[in-house]
């Protein structure tokens, strides 16, 4: 399965909308174990994506992902800006010379996040959503339940990367905010693909 321009474009726009609608929820999650700005950060990014896409009106998926990456990199700051930005920048480069399988695409994004964050699974970061989703895609269709399961798995983890890691054991018992925004990304991907992808 490969994402064509229209689908991919819908996906990114739906994601931006979802983030804007859930700004406070993301802030609340980040207040518990971070510094309370993940919603504000992502909302700034979402608005920048919408503005950039309507201005540039990209004509291929590579440019679409690049515009998305640049909007995140230039407007978000914090930890999430470079992480989402790197994921989409790497995805943009990967599809430049021809569209690729969705499962490969998401793995490339995941690897970008791992490289940028010098992190891996089980550190209570957004990687704990990206990697499982990538795995699911490799073995078949993606449904929202998969996303929910990945997200929920972060609750019991102890953070060893990012701001929550300063809390050590006390970081347990809370959903990771970056995983929540990533869950929105993959929920909206399912919306675009349809539950029967």
């Amino acid at each position, binding site marked *: 399965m490969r994402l064509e321009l229209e689908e991919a474009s819908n996906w990114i726009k739906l994601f931006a909308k979802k983030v804007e609608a859930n700004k406070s929820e993301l*802030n609340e999650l980040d*207040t518990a174990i971070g*510094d*309370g*700005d993940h919603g*504000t*950060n992502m909302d*700034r990014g979402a608005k920048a994506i919408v503005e950039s896409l309507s201005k540039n009106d990209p004509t291929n998926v590579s440019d679409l992902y690049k515009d998305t990456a640049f909007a995140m*990199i*230039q*407007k*978000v*700051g*914090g*930890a*999430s*800006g*470079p*992480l989402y*930005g*790197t994921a989409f920048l790497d995805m943009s480069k990967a599809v430049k010379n021809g569209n690729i399988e969705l499962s490969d695409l998401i793995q490339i994004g995941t690897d970008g996040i791992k490289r*940028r*964050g010098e992190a891996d699974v089980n550190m209570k970061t957004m990687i704990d959503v990206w990697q499982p989703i990538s795995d699911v895609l490799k073995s078949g269709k993606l449904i929202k339940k998969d996303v929910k399961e990945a997200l929920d798995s972060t609750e019991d983890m102890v*953070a*060893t*990367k*990012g*701001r929550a*890691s*300063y*809390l*050590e054991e006390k970081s347990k018992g809370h959903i990771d905010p970056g995983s929540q925004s990533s869950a929105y990304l993959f929920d909206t991907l399912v919306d675009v693909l349809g539950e029967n992808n």
Partner: protein
Amino acid sequence: MKKIINNVEDIVPELISGLVKTNSGLIKQIEGTTAVVRNDKKFSETKQVGIVSGGGSGHEPLHAGFVGDGMLSAAVAGEVFTSPTPDQIYEAINAVNKGMGVLLIVKNYSGDVMNFDMAKEMAEADDIKIRTIVVDDDISVENSEFTQGKRGVAGTVLVEKIVGAAARSGMSLDDLAKLGQAVINNTKTIGIALHAATVPAVGHPGFELKDDEIEYGIGIHNERGYSVEKIKPSQVLADELIEKILKEFIDKSGKFAVLINGMGGTPLMEQYIFANDVLNELNDKNIDVQFSKVGNMVTSLDMQGISLTIMKTEDNWIDMLKEPVVTIGW
């Protein structure tokens, strides 16, 4: 929340605009960014390694207040408590590069580290030589080996001062990076809060303390610390923090530097009383303090509290700390 602000989204641009307007001989804004760069005559006339720092806003005078002859060449301001973006950092690098390379001074937060890294990659693509040092002076987080590592807090300003002095004297980029790392290794900080900061976009204090409680080991972004206790006399607080910090230094001989830093909402009166207790206790412990400084340097919005930084100095660091500079905040 009661603050003297306009729209929450306009805080950083307006703050930078106020800084630049009231210090136009000293700094100017880099167009299209919330970064500032030196604007003095000497800067345009002298070649040296560029020193760029930056981070989230809310720590004023850090970093823009330390831009000037003998300290930073440029400073990049992100949103409140949020790392600036790579493109802004990249602009600042370009504004200070004079062919001798640029040193980035970054506080150890994943956001800052990643954004500065990306800016570094962008600048390196332009063949600008970049080195990065990451300040992690906060000793309050234990077991930091397994995590993000220690945070960068008030000690940052001492690093900026020493590295800035060395850069002014003509030191090379590689040597500056080496010097900076040595300073960081010898700089230890711990802080306490009497009252948490109120992030403007959040609207209420980051955590609650009772009328007689203080929190030990807080970060500069409302990160909670390692314990909540009843408030104690300044003298007791000084003794406790000193004991905790001195454990970090195996060799207690040599010359030391001390920074007593106000968190933003604590008046100078209390900072000087605390400084008096700190210096008395260090004197009793035969620690040879050759440099000390008191004031609001690395703040956390309106947080009430203080931090204590102790540095074991080498070579001529003490002289470099004492060298006069022309900045807003030093």
